[in-house]
């Protein structure tokens, strides 16, 4: 008699466990196979030499790492990735903040323009890249129409190794500035009004109020955007694939493009895996820094 309710509770608990497992298993399985396993698989492949045709990879130890890390072409790729990422991060944050300040003014139609500026963010990168290829077309593109009246000739953007990278940066900025603006705007609208008003009463100008009050209060958002933009830009692929294919020469070969090139054009699994591990480590450092900083913020609050 006494054991019955306990039994009932036990079966209920068992059934709850069972249901939990059933609901979570599919998701966990896909995540394990297609998100976590690839890291181990990459680590293994990076120690091998394999053209993906031979029956099995040949173990070569650390030679892929030694060769990659001393390869001038890899140094150049890393440099291009850093420049590319730096320009896009700085540009996105500056333009996004400027747009957010504009959208935060009491102007008619600001909501519509905010929506318009955000639209490119959800559009296919491949399609956006194709539009901009035409815009940059030196013969009949929009850019020529815009700069010719000022007496300049447009460059052959995507075929010129000096212009291809800046061209890609422009496209990514066009695609992402509306997103950073949106996040900054949400941040601006969440700021306490009292501080700003008190400073205004004390005679602080618009610029002082922005620099001394708004900008510091927006720091957490700036930090969030910095991290997500770095992570996103490191993996930028579709626009590069459509517009330059890493060229001309290697002028726009970023780390993400070189992983694709080694893996799916040169069929060099060992090298592609090595580059993948390099990218993973870099981005892991970035996210760890983020986690640390967030932790500290929570602690000091």
């Amino acid at each position: 008699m006494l054991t019955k309710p306990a039994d009932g509770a036990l079966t209920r608990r068992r059934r709850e466990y069972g249901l939990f497992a059933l609901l979570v298993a599919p998701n966990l399985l896909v995540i394990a196979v297609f998100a976590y396993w690839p890291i181990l698989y990459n680590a293994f492949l990076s120690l091998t030499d394999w053209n993906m045709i031979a029956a099995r990879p040949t173990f070569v130890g650390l030679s892929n790492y030694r060769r990659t890390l001393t390869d001038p072409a890899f140094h150049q790729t890393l440099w291009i990735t850093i420049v590319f990422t730096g320009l896009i991060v700085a540009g996105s944050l500056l333009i996004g903040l400027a747009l957010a300040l504009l959208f935060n003014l009491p102007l008619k139609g600001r909501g519509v323009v905010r929506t318009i500026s955000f639209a490119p963010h959800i559009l296919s990168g491949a399609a956006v890249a194709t539009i901009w290829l035409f815009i940059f077309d030196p013969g009949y593109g929009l850019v020529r129409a815009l700069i010719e009246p000022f007496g300049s000739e447009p460059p052959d953007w995507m075929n010129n190794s000096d212009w291809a990278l800046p061209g890609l940066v422009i496209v990514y900025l066009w695609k992402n500035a509306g997103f950073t603006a949106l996040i900054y705007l949400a941040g601006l609208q969440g700021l306490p009004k009292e501080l700003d008003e008190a400073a205004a009463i004390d005679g602080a100008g618009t610029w002082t109020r922005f620099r001394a009050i708004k900008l510091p209060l927006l720091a957490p958002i700036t930090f969030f955007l910095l991290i997500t933009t770095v992570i996103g830009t490191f993996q930028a692929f579709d626009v590069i694939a459509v517009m330059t294919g890493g060229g001309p020469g290697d002028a726009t070969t970023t780390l993400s493009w070189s992983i694709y090139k080694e893996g799916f054009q040169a069929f060099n699994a060992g090298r592609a895996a090595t580059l993948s591990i390099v990218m993973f480590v870099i981005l892991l450092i970035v996210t760890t820094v983020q986690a640390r900083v967030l932790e500290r913020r929570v602690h000091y609050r």
Partner: protein
Amino acid sequence: MKTRPLQYVALLGVAAIFLGPLYWLLSTAFKQPAEIYQWPPVWWPDQLTWENFSLAWKAAPFDRFFLNSAIITVAGTVLKVANAVLTAYAFAYLRFPFKKVLFLLILGAMMVPGHVTLLPNYLTVASLGWINTYAGLIIPGIGSAFATFLMRQQFLTLPSEVTDAAAVDGAGHLRTLWRVVLPMSRPMLITVVVITAVEEWNNFVWPLIVTNTAEMRTLPVGLLILKDEEGLANWGTIMAGTLLVLAPMLLIFLVAQRYIVGGITQGALKG
């Protein structure tokens, strides 16, 4: 205030910068080829034509691309959101040993950059015999970490009486989920569905490497093929193809804009 007119000029300028390229796309897609290659450019087409679209259709099987994109977007979104909802429900309402660790394991997937998984996933999919199949296109992408996180946050905001009462009534958990929890979470669910669908539709690198015949290509990849085939000599055709890739997402954006914006800002400000 003399600055107000200047601010409106800035606002108009911003609108022009973001609308300009889209107008250039739209007008070119409907221009007659002769007008595309006129200098100075024709800003307002004289006569609209569908010719570019039929040329694009002839150059590449766009109907097939469209079908594939639709299948992958619908199936991928349904499966991924189902994963998110079921996982979130389990973590919000059910008991299980080491639940916290398991949840961190799921969230940890967000720290793995997708680009890093390309080669191993290609090899895994190849060993499963899924190259150039819908399974290969869809399954690797249906694991959900971020959407699970968003859904769980949402479920935890629901008053506990609602789910308690439903459980006392003898309603099973799945019925509670379907009848009570999901209807009460509608806005968040719509946000998750729309954001997932946009990602699936726009996905580029995975369909590029996992398919190898024209019949299995999706629209964004098909566009790259069209561009490579046409060279850069036939902008009307290419812009028509580009518009086909963009139009469905532009429509979704116009209809569901507030859900997308809401979800993205929420994810950012909470994260």
